[in-house]
């Protein structure tokens, strides 16, 4: 008799445990492993209120995630409440993301972050830069850990589908090779059988494989996680060549002990549109960042600089007055930005050309790289933005 009670008792609990597991299992199979894009399209089916702009990113369970990732409202509100923009970038590449003589974060990519910080918070320094490696870029922006990813990110269709939304291409680059001039190699087609140093988790790594395969050339690689290691291994003779975006090669060469001993081969083997990225699922924030980029490009086009922006507010050109918020609207209130945010942006970092020249112009802080494709469209380049109206 005793035995029976005990068995009953035990099997009851056993059943409950099983039921709990089974429920868990059901949830697992029901949860569709879809992309956010799909989830956004059918918010009602997922049982979420379709009223707000960003149904897919809303976190229902506040205990589930660290506070930084939880989004009650939009990313814009989050950033403005926090009072700082969190930007994933780098500190190890001259010209794009480095520490200047004062120890501050500086560079082309960093200034794009500052521009966004100035637009949404009103202060270009209200920005926290989180240095990450190349392979950390995808997971970082996918998880929405940062507000903006601005770290030489090449725009590719796969990444666009997986990582996040690509805003506006701010730097047109292409992959090249650097070799010691002493080797006498003058073309990338001479590299059959060569050992090449490269950074892991990059498009560079993939293009390199494609290029050698396409030309039927043998290739050996040494792949590093850390960009600095790539170049120190190359400099110590571990590799015959190294490959990356040509701007990066120029940047790195400027820091070598003997820059003249290394040459960049003429071939450009890929298209590398470097573009800041935001997380999927927040259209408002995506538009905000794109508009800030448009302001930088339009300002150069219209001749508005950090020095003359105040005077330009009373310019007789209505397009300039509209951009600077002195007259009319170009969507600021719909985006949730102040009418004069463009003034803050330009005061903080200047226009596109000023940013470029600050680091890579003739008297650039880091090195000098002719603008080439990165000239404005009306100057023979590819830098173009939609009108602000």
């Amino acid at each position, binding site marked *: 008799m005793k035995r029976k009670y005990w068995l009953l008792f035990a099997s009851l609990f056993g059943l409950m445990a099983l039921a709990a597991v089974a429920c868990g299992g059901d949830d697992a199979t029901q949860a569709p492993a879809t992309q956010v894009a799909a989830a956004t399209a059918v918010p009602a089916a997922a049982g979420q209120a379709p009223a707000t702009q960003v149904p897919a990113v809303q976190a229902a369970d506040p205990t589930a995630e660290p506070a930084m990732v939880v989004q009650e409202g939009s990313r814009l509100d989050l950033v403005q409440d926090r009072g700082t923009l969190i930007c994933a970038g780098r500190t190890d590449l001259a010209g794009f993301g480095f520490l200047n003589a004062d120890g501050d974060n500086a560079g082309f990519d960093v200034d794009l972050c500052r521009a966004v910080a100035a637009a949404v918070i009103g202060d270009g320094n209200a920005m926290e830069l989180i240095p990450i490696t190349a392979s950390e870029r995808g997971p970082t922006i996918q998880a929405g850990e940062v507000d903006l990813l601005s770290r030489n990110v090449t725009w590719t269709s796969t990444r666009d589908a997986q*990582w996040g939304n690509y805003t506006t291409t701010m730097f047109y680059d292409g992959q090249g090779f650097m070799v010691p001039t002493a080797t006498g190699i003058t073309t990338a087609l001479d590299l059959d059988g060569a*050992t090449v140093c490269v950074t892991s988790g990059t498009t560079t790594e993939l293009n390199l494989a494609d290029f050698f395969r396409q030309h039927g050339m043998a290739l050996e690689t040494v792949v590093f996680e850390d960009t600095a290691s790539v170049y120190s291994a190359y400099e110590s003779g571990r590799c015959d060549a190294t490959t990356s975006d040509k701007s990066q090669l120029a940047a790195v060469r400027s820091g070598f002990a003997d820059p003249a001993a290394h040459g960049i081969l003429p071939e450009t083997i890929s298209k590398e549109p470097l573009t800041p990225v935001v997380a999927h699922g927040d259209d408002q924030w995506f538009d905000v960042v794109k508009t800030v980029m448009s302001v930088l490009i339009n300002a150069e086009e219209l001749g508005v600089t950090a020095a003359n922006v105040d005077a330009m507010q009373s310019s007789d050109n209505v397009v300039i007055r509209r951009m600077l918020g002195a007259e009319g609207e170009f969507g600021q209130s719909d985006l949730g930005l102040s009418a004069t945010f463009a003034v803050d942006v330009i005061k903080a970092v200047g226009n596109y050309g000023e940013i470029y020249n600050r680091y890579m112009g003739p008297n650039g802080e880091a090195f000098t790289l002719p603008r080439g494709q990165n000239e404005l469209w009306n100057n023979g380049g590819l830098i173009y933005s939609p009108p602000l109206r």
Partner: protein
Amino acid sequence: MRFLTLGGVPLWRDARVLRAAAQIISVLIVVIVAVFVINNVLDAAEKRGFSLGFGFLEEEAGFIISESVIEYGAADTFQSAFLAGVLNTLKIALLGIILATGLGVIVGVARISSNWLVRTVAGVYVETFRNIPLLIQLFFWYFGVFLLLPPVRESIQWPGPVFLNARGFFAVWGSASSSFSTWIWFVLAGVILALAVRVAAGQVQSRFGRATHPNLSALAVLVILPIIGWFLMAESPLVRDVPELGRFNFEGGLRLSPEFAAFLLGLVIYTASFIAEIVRAGILSVQKGQLEAARALGLNELQTMQSVAFPQAMRVIVPPLISQFLNLTKNSSLGILIAYPDLYFVSRTMINQAGRAVPIFLMIMGAYLLMSLTFAVIGNIYNRRVRYVDR
């Protein structure tokens, strides 16, 4: 209230019921936590657009792996890339375990040597390498030693010929000729026969007390059979493959990349310093009377170690030794920092190129767990054999 009693004892005071309830509650807590964690991951993954399927494994990986045990190219699938990573980890772990054990035993014995110099050198070795973080040692060996070797065209040449340069270590090696596949049977026969000889001679020795030198006899069989086979072949089974300077690098022969060499050296030297201490502790745990008795029987120092000290020390040595093997295996994930394409490094690249963080991390965890458990099981089986048996 009667239904709440069991043989006159109320349920809440019945020790058996309480014990059972405690067990069931703890199981429930574990299950609830697990369900919560899994749901949370699935939930978060869905919201952020992390895909959870494993279908991507069939897609083309597109990236290159510097060195691989199997044939792997950029056109192969993510699956083969992962396999290449796993095999690279196994390669460094197995070689590392063998070499670290050898070095560790030598240093451990040296630490209790009666020779002052040997003892001190071993002591300094252990205290130095045991107390510097492995990561720093790896950086030192790779960037501070191997990459500072001269460039290819100014290689250091040792007789053999063996070449040392910033591209690695190149040595003469044998490459298989057409008769190799026949000859390998002689080698296999040698191994099997050697094992048989060792067991048989060992039994004769312990049964009749006659010295039959089981190890030496086995070694002789192991060496002689392949040599006989070698001369029976019409064409010699291995052809001398000398590394020669090509357009960019040495080609042919045996080649160890600086990444592999630095990593192996770093892991072995670091782990051996721990193993040395384990071995020393094991030997010192053998009762003094045992050693004195061995000496009284007229055994020399080597025989004492081999037949008296080590067999008894083993049962102290083996359990912590197994954890050192596991440590070495798990430390092999540091290869990412010196460009050795181990399981973790390849997986990191896969996460980035395939954009599938959650499934790939599950694969990483599964692979390390499987490897560690396998090593642990093998170690435990051996441990059961050397354990003290009460007779």
